[in-house]
């Protein structure tokens, strides 16, 4: 470690201890003030460690990153164990195990079927043996097959047929004569001209967009021109979506700054 690194490390340690002492001192004397002081300081340290990534990769970020990975992996493991294995499987396969885990037994005529996923799960664990890897393809095939069939029809319905249906828009909207047609020329959607114009843009936008996604035909001539209009419409959409997301992300940053300034340093209300 370089000299600067050692100095920074010492400064971080001192600041950490000072913060811990101050937070513990100002904590609730009736509660676990030493532990709570440590935890708030630790949370602030981790927040700053992650933010330091914006400057460059550094030991504090690496520490937070590795801690994050270890803790989160174990968190999901525990959660899956208690909620799925103990919560979903145990009550159905054994009364004795249910009693041991203190979960209500759910007797059922066809509960023996729940031994099948256990067997498939064990087959999956065979991956860990050097020669049993091939048998672990069976549970994978079961999962992929089940969901592939499911996805096939569901997406064809929701993303394809229902979307075609929504494209059926009348191009002439409730015609009330030329006077009314030209009297409301703004992007305010109540105007008849704008409503009709909007429907035209949606209809031809969808058509050009679909044409852009043609793979087996060369994009030349009128087809190429329609495809080009299609990609323009897509780009406008991506821009609008980009702009829309920016504000949401900034509010997240404000949330973290509030934690540092209010919860940790106590300098903002």
């Amino acid at each position, binding site marked *: 470690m370089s000299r600067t690194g050692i100095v920074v490390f010492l400064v971080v340690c001192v600041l950490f201890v000072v913060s811990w002492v101050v937070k513990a001192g100002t904590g609730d004397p009736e509660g676990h003030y030493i532990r709570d002081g440590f*935890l708030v300081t630790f*949370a602030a340290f*981790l927040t700053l460690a*992650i933010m330091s990534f*914006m400057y460059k990769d550094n030991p504090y970020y*690496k*520490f937070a990153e590795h*801690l994050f*990975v*270890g803790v989160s992996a*174990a*968190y999901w*493991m*525990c959660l*899956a*164990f*208690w909620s*799925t294995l103990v*919560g979903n499987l145990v009550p159905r396969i054994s009364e004795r195990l249910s009693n041991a*885990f203190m979960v209500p037994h759910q007797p059922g005529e066809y509960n023996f*079927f*729940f031994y099948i*996923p*256990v067997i498939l*799960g064990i087959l999956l*664990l065979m991956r860990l043996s050097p020669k049993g890897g*091939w048998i672990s*393809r069976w*549970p*994978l*095939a079961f999962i992929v*097959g*089940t969901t*592939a*069939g*499911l*996805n*096939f*029809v*569901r*997406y064809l319905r929701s*993303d394809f047929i229902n979307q075609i249906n*929504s*494209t059926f828009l009348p191009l002439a909207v409730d015609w009330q004569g030329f006077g009314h047609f030209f009297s409301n020329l703004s*992007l305010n959607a109540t105007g008849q001209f704008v409503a009709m114009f909007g429907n035209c843009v*949606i209809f031809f936008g969808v058509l050009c*967009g679909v044409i852009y996604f043609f793979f087996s035909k060369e994009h030349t001539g009128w087809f190429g021109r329609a495809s080009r209009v*299609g*990609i323009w419409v897509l*780009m*406008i959409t*991506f*821009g609008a979506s980009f702009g*829309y*997301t920016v*504000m949401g*992300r900034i509010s*997240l940053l404000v*949330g*973290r700054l509030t934690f540092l300034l209010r919860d940790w340093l106590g300098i903002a209300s």
Partner: protein
Amino acid sequence: MKRQIPVLLVFAFGVFTLFQFFVPHESSEWVYEFLLDWILIIGVFAMAVGIWSLFRVSVEKIKTRKSGWGYSYITLGSLIAMMVFGFTVRNGEAWGWFFAFVAAIVLAVFLVIQAVIDRGKAYLFAGLAGLCVAAAVVMAALDPAWSIHFQTAEGLQSTMFRAVFDYTLIPIFATMFSLLAFFIASAAYRAFRARNLMATLLLLAALIVMSRFNPFLQPILGEYVAKTSNWLMNVPNMAAQRAIIMGVGLGIAATALKVVLGIERGYMGKG
């Protein structure tokens, strides 16, 4: 057989779920619900495979003294400690020897790893690991302040499991998320530099929508910007989204069908 049985399984279950969509009868629904439960249960076993992979890669890093190998101890230590937190519960207000117990378990695992890496001193490290385990067992048996609970999900609600979640996972999670604010700024700058029609269109639309939300620009630009921004979101945006969704729907359907029919086997290592 090694490849044919999985293909047959995919076909059988794929065709079943495909037809199940059209059969509303109770018996078909019942099998469908069973299958979904099965997938969840298999997922837990898969998680064990995943944790083992994380463990293995971390140990390998330590073993080969790869750059930054020391941090692997943090990953392994936090992984084991969090697992212990998930299976223990405090009985009263005091902590007793709980943290010494956790430290003993973590240390025991580290010593076992060391024994595997340093074959020359394997017996020494294994012996020390045994001592740590013995100490942990004694502490678990004699300390009344906490207990190991393999019963109900109490462990998940135990003080340390929650505390680590609230003060470690949440702050890092939220901070990583908030970094997006900086990244989006640099991404916008990158978009500004791009000089072609596509990038200009993207940027123009982004600027119109962003200026709508800007409290300083709004009074200057008036409500036309808000209306244009609304129009962009409701009209061209809707058209493009529909075109993309239709394409994606077809792509998903075609890929899924190829999987069911055994034409696409990329997921089994045979494309």
